[in-house]
């Protein structure tokens, strides 16, 4: 596999995220959220997207606020440390956004079904809940063996998975560590995969530890070098969660005008990662840096 997949963020989004496509993002839930990629989607004024994921902290809210989204299939859309998200609320309350309500388990099973190439997965959750009222992709079935009442969750196969990772080579082989959320299944379920990486490293570093590789590189479509591409979410090994950014976003996005100002500041003016880092400022970068390091004990893949 000798062809480099390295693209700019602009090229990757332009090529692999057409209007109307379905995207899955925020796959590690609270960490490694691909904010830089989401901001490029906003910059390119994509329309009629479907967003898929368990929770995404404030990422889905930003793309919704920018008018890019027609449909959300998710378990939770909010701000993890402050609660409700305002663009999402406004869009649902004014009926301008379609919603398919999931739980974390049902969306995990929908992506797992997509990954496994089966049309549904059974689960014991959601029984008796009203998720069935707002999600036509959940149905009650009976187990063919035990007769148990179960929730069948229809498979989801997104057009694109966008994954922020710690390090990748130019061929799409990427190391991810920390909690993995639904990343592995979501990558396997998706037709194409865009990786944004804190660092681009030599294939040597990646291939020395194949258990740390998140998904087989041959299925990856694009690799983008994007330091701080997960900020303000935490990236294990690179930087801590920027709590203040989430609190500020809550305050700034309370009104449509406030969100427009936020977007101008954080999205419109930050096309390159150098711009973004400059906007963050040295102090903030120093504050978010890891203070305690803990390196793994090597293992031997010799023969």
């Amino acid at each position: 596999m000798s062809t480099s997949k390295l693209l700019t963020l602009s090229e990757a989004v332009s090529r692999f995220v057409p209007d109307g496509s379905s995207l899955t993002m925020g796959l590690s839930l609270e960490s490694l959220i691909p904010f830089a990629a989401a901001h490029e989607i906003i910059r390119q004024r994509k329309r009629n997207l479907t967003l898929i994921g368990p929770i995404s902290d404030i990422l889905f809210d930003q793309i919704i606020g920018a008018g890019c989204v027609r449909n959300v299939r998710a378990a939770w859309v909010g701000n993890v440390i402050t609660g409700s998200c305002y663009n999402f609320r406004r869009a649902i309350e004014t009926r301008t956004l379609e919603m398919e309500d999931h739980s974390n388990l049902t969306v995990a099973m929908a992506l797992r079904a997509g990954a496994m190439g089966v049309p549904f997965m059974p689960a014991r959750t959601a029984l008796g809940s009203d998720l069935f009222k707002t999600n036509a992709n959940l149905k009650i079935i009976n187990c063919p063996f035990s007769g148990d009442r179960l929730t069948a969750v229809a498979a989801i196969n997104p057009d694109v998975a966008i994954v922020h990772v710690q390090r990748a080579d130019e061929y799409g082989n990427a190391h991810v560590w920390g909690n993995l959320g639904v990343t592995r299944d979501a990558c396997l379920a998706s037709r194409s995969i865009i990786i944004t990486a804190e660092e681009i490293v030599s294939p040597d570093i990646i291939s020395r530890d194949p258990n740390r590789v998140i998904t087989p590189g041959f299925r990856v479509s694009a690799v983008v070098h994007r330091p701080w591409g997960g900020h303000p979410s935490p990236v294990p090994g690179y930087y801590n969660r920027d709590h203040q950014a989430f609190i500020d976003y809550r305050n700034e996005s309370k009104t449509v005008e406030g969100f427009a100002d936020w977007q101008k500041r954080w999205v419109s003016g930050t096309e390159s990662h150098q711009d973004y880092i400059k906007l963050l400022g040295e102090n903030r970068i120093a504050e978010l840096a890891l203070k305690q390091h803990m390196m793994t004990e090597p293992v031997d893949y010799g023969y």
Partner: protein
Amino acid sequence: MTKQNTKSRKWTPAELMVTAAAREIADGEVVFVGMRLPLLGFLLAKSTHAPDAVGVYELGIVRDTLAPEPILTMGDLPNLYRAQWLADTADAMALLQQGSVDISFIGGAQVDRFGNLNTSYIGGVENITTRLPGSGGACDLACLAKRHIIIMSHEKRRFVPRVDYITSPGYGDGGNWRQQVGLPRGGPSTVITTLGILRFDSDSREMALSSVHPGITADMVAENTGWPLHISADLSQTPEPSDEELVMLRRFDPQGYWTGRKS
């Protein structure tokens, strides 16, 4: 609770609630840890009476030790440091669904007498007045943990006869509803509110007031509840947080972000 009483106390209402939540955890139990106050409750239990409790987090984390630094949310890097296991959400959910999780905690915007929770649509689906964030893992915890604890602000608009939308099932219409719909186990065991603690009748599955917080009367609780509230025959007063518990809590939430010492 009168202003005077509050001022004379060493603890905030949130600290009392977190302490009550922590005391629901027995040592050695497997706890599915949620966001916000439940996260603090787990840390408090683990650092006091339940050192061998194990925490499972929907992000794909299992921990059996405290994080080395205060955390605001379960995805903070100190919560990954020396975790017992870092894996997939499906793995954490496997532990939950197979019945390995003893206890979990859920917050809510609306609750009804049978412990059903709404964190999705106020006004219901046909007539949405407020859209809330949704289930996250809450529906799964309510369906699949051996028991779950509800943590709520006690207000009449939140304690309603029937929730507008069941995000997280409690006992449905009461009685053996959970078995009828196919839920394999569990149900809410306790509701911890800003005013008191409520528990569920083992037959009817309706909640009744079990204890009131210091300075609160049963009448005050009933007034803030949207249906005629049952009061337990042996109504007690919620024990206050101990000094040891408060010390620990302030170590875990030094800025008072969750326990409201600053806000």
